[in-house]
């Protein structure tokens, strides 16, 4: 099990500014975790630090046992797909994970089915709609059956219908046992999909609580202001 993920006094600095300050948390298996905060609070940076795309200026980020690199995946706000068919995008990820060639196509088709894109398998990925592309990105991430799935504002660029489709897929993955860690600034989405909330404000972890408790009885003034909609940006 690569969880729990332990963050100890993590700092991140860029261009002379402190983006994240003294973040400490232990994220365990089970409940889906929402990283919540206004734009500029540091959510995306925290996601990338956890996933290993960035290195902290100081502090430690530690996974549990196992091949942490292989057993996690990330879906970004805008999906980056290769100029190939939908199926080939998924088999590419499987190839990188050294899945034997004979297995790749089968696993890829399964993944496409799980997001409802099986019929699109031979289509060039780049001609799909925004929502379909994001579903494809999810399928690609899912194909390796990761233990942890990071999602960085996955529906921020999508219309309501596409957003609902993506949320359904995420909920299905959650139900299947994948640990969901998702960053969003969308309160409704956080309530729909999350079990617990880590609330970031100006680079600090200000509050952590189960989702209903966070929304009905926020402990910190910043969280309260944010929920009331008075903190659109930092």
């Amino acid at each position, binding site marked *: 099990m690569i969880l729990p993920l332990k963050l100890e006094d993590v700092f991140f600095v860029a261009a002379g500014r402190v983006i994240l300050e003294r973040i400490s948390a232990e994220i365990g298996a089970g409940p889906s975790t929402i990283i919540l905060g206004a734009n500029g609070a540091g959510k995306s940076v925290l996601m990338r630090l956890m996933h290993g795309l960035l290195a902290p200026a100081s502090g430690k980020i530690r996974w549990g046992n196992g091949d942490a*690199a292989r057993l996690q995946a990330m879906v970004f706000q805008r999906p980056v797909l290769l*100029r190939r068919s939908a199926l080939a995008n998924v088999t590419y*990820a499987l190839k990188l994970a050294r899945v034997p060639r004979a297995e790749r196509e089968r696993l890829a088709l399964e993944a496409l089915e799980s997001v409802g894109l099986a019929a699109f398998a031979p289509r060039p990925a780049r001609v799909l709609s925004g929502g379909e592309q994001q579903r494809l990105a999810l399928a690609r991430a899912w194909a390796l059956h990761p233990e942890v799935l990071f999602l960085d504002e996955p529906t921020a660029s999508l219309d309501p219908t596409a957003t609902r489709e993506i949320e359904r897929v995420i909920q299905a993955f959650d139900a299947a046992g994948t640990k969901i860690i998702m960053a969003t600034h969308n309160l409704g989405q956080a309530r729909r999909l999350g079990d617990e909330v880590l609330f970031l404000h100006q680079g600090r972890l200000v509050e952590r609580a189960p989702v209903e408790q966070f929304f009905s009885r926020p402990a910190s003034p910043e969280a309260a202001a944010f929920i009331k909609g008075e903190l659109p940006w930092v």
Partner: protein
Amino acid sequence: MEGLAEAARGALRLIVSGDATLGGIVLLSLGVSLSAVLVATLVGLPLGAAIGVGRFPGRRAVVVLLNALMGLPPVVVGLFVYLMLSRAGPLGSLGILFTPTAMVIAQTVLILPIIAALCRQAVEDAWAEYEEQLRSLGATGLSAALTVVWEIRFSLLTAVLAGLGRASAEVGAVMIVGGNIDGVTRVMTTTIALETSKGDLPLALALGLVLILLVIALNAAAAYVKDAAQRRYG
């Protein structure tokens, strides 16, 4: 103006007459330049891609140098390769001076920086888009770089065509290392130079027009292939 019209008529006559000597010269020109482009592409694309995604000390200096080498004067390259291949030089025992092989080598040296530098720029620009996603999927180093190269393969075609243009147009390098030997190393550009120096300007101009038409035809063919492939793969 009249000279130009006469040259155009001359060019038409040359093409239509199917003169065997001219045919041989045209085939040799194509063979030398296309071979040089092939080798320079095989070496230059990975080289440019590696520099494009790589981060190492002195990288900026390498990029500046690579860009500067695009402007290598052909006659200087010819001189350098000549001194290498001369019997009095280090590679003299190969005995390939004054052969088409020497001409291919000289042209390869000339256009390698062009293809590598243009590839480097294109890959670097594309890398900004692909880096996070590819690293998230576990693609690293050369594998990631080559994936990006394949992604932008149609844009890279322009870099390859730039190299082809430079190779077919130059006379300095092939003149020195080839010796402009009748029937052996005489190509279109050296023939034009010879006819000019003999004072047969109409013939030289007519040959020049044939050369330009040839290069246009090559570019048109490349554009057609590119469009067809793009329609297939998106």
